[in-house]
């Protein structure tokens, strides 16, 4: 068992950026893994992704032709199992994505491979793999090892590692995915409803509200506040789940990424990993929260420990017209 197998991810004809991040993770521990880095892409038309995956440090790109056009957990499980059998890697890296979660635990359970999910660090300690992940609501770091496991499947968190820009010249090979009986059928993709007027990814200034808002009637004053200061109104998951604001305003993993944001004011948001995935890169984050131990204060540049209603009202009063 040696080397690393990376499973790239694509959706709607586009490579998911996390794929290139995982390659960087693999290349980073390649020397410790004492074997090649193999990247596999499973698709109906896998060749079109081969070039983008051919970055420096990759030894082989396997284009796996699958009869299944859209993601199917059974097809991916069988295909990755076949890739593992062919390559015998000591580490299999998958993105910690919704699709990986639909088959990685099944794959590991069925074949008895080591498994760690949502890891943000992997290393080899005296030849044995150690993965680091969060515990107790991400308050602690947890090092996990895999006694007696020669192959370990790790789903790795997005936005942790920078992709490698330099191109490489890996061998590109072809493989056919094993046929699997269909138990599920992908019908279509659906985009989150609500608000063509909302542009979270394009906004440079976002004021976001979270659970601290308390009740629906309190949302309006923050909508007005955002307008007063000239910010786009965003929110965290509980606000969208409650239907108080449309999903199109949700910032985070399952919502939108604040891709162009330069100033982000988080009011009453404690800072889940999922929310922070959509905004932690913003240079200027101001967090307002009553709980001085809230996770959001660990990533914010400025913090105000205080009541969002009091601060909100004061901001409305002081902000120059």
């Amino acid at each position, binding site marked *: 068992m040696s080397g690393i197998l990376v499973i790239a991810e694509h*959706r*709607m004809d586009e490579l*998911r950026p996390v794929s290139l991040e995982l390659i960087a993770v693999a290349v980073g521990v390649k020397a410790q893994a004492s074997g090649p880095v193999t990247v596999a892409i499973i698709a109906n038309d896998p060749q079109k992704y081969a070039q983008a995956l051919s970055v420096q440090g990759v030894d082989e790109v396997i284009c796996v032709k699958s009869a299944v056009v859209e*993601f199917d*957990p*059974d097809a991916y499980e069988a295909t990755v199992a076949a890739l593992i059998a062919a390559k015998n890697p000591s580490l299999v890296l998958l993105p910690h*994505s*919704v*699709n990986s*979660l*639909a088959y*990685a*635990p*099944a794959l*590991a359970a069925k074949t008895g*491979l*080591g498994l*760690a*999910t*949502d890891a943000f660090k992997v290393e080899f300690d005296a030849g044995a793999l150690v*993965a680091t*992940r*969060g*515990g*107790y*609501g*991400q*308050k*602690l*770091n*947890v090092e*996990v*090892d895999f*006694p007696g496991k020669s192959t370990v499947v790790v789903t790795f968190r997005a936005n942790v590692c920078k992709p490698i820009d330099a191109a490489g010249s890996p061998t590109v090979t072809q493989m056919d995915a094993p046929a699997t009986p269909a*138990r*599920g059928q*992908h*019908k*279509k*993709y*659906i*985009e989150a409803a609500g608000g063509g007027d909302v542009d979270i990814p394009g906004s*440079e*200034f976002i004021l976001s509200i979270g659970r601290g808002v308390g009740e629906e009637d309190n949302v309006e004053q923050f909508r007005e506040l955002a307008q007063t200061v000239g910010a786009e109104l965003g929110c965290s*998951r509980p606000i*969208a789940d409650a239907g108080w604001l449309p*999903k199109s305003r949700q910032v985070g993993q*399952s919502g*939108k990424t604040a891709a162009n944001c330069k*100033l982000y004011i988080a009011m009453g948001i404690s800072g889940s990993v999922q929310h922070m995935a959509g905004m932690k890169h913003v240079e*200027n984050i101001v967090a307002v929260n009553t709980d001085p131990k809230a996770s959001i204060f*660990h*990533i914010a540049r*400025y*913090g*105000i420990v205080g009541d969002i209603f009091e*601060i909100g009202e004061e*901001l409305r009063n*002081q902000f*120059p017209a």
Partner: protein
Amino acid sequence: MKILVTVKQVAAVDDDFEIRTDGRDVDPDFLIHDLNEWDNFSLEEAMKIKEAAGGEVEVVVVSVGPESVDEELRKCLAKGADRAIRVWDDSVEGSDPIAIARIIAAVAKNEAPDMLFAGVQASDHSYAATGIATASFLGWPHAAVVSLLNYTPGSKMATLQRELEGGTYAEVELECPAVLTIQLGINVPRYASLRGIKQAAAKPIDVLTPSALGLAATDVGEAGSLSRVRRMYVPAKGQAELIEGTPAEQVARLVKIIQEFKGV
């Protein structure tokens, strides 16, 4: 017609906590327990199906854990679950999500439900693995991160939406019985009524052991796991520059930050 709902008693650390002397977990004296947030949504989804079918659906909740877990099971019974199953003995100690899944699958084989719902993940350790691993042990079709479900009890197919990243959803048709991992926001969970809480006290919680379910000692605990916790520690974290003063003073600084951004 039966729906099995898996639930977990999760743990959060107290403000000031200590790590156990072996360094592999938090000292249990510093843990605060609750029902996993996701499980409220999977139970509600089962209750909605039960009520739409006019009550001919039995909702059974199952959990793996010690006696303290009965508190969470009572919460589920108070919200309308018909009965509860708890599996535990000392051999379960040290189990990872895969070993837990093996136990739940053994319960499911006995119960033969028409559907199995699990939360996407648990708020304490966020493995997001137990539900899908359970499906694997059962050999059942499965879907992860379900945010909308159309299912009629007894039907051979369910139509559902999976919540992907970035505000995209995938609509999927799936054969049943199936294991679905249920996402937050799929419904609005109810609160237990006073009547429900009173009735819950009289509902049964069956306590089983892994061996009674036909599992071997090597199926559970560390031996039945695919991973092992080696060490836990508090990571070094960044800290925001705190803006001190009265709210008026704090906001004066905030206004300055906004104006700097705007180039005023």
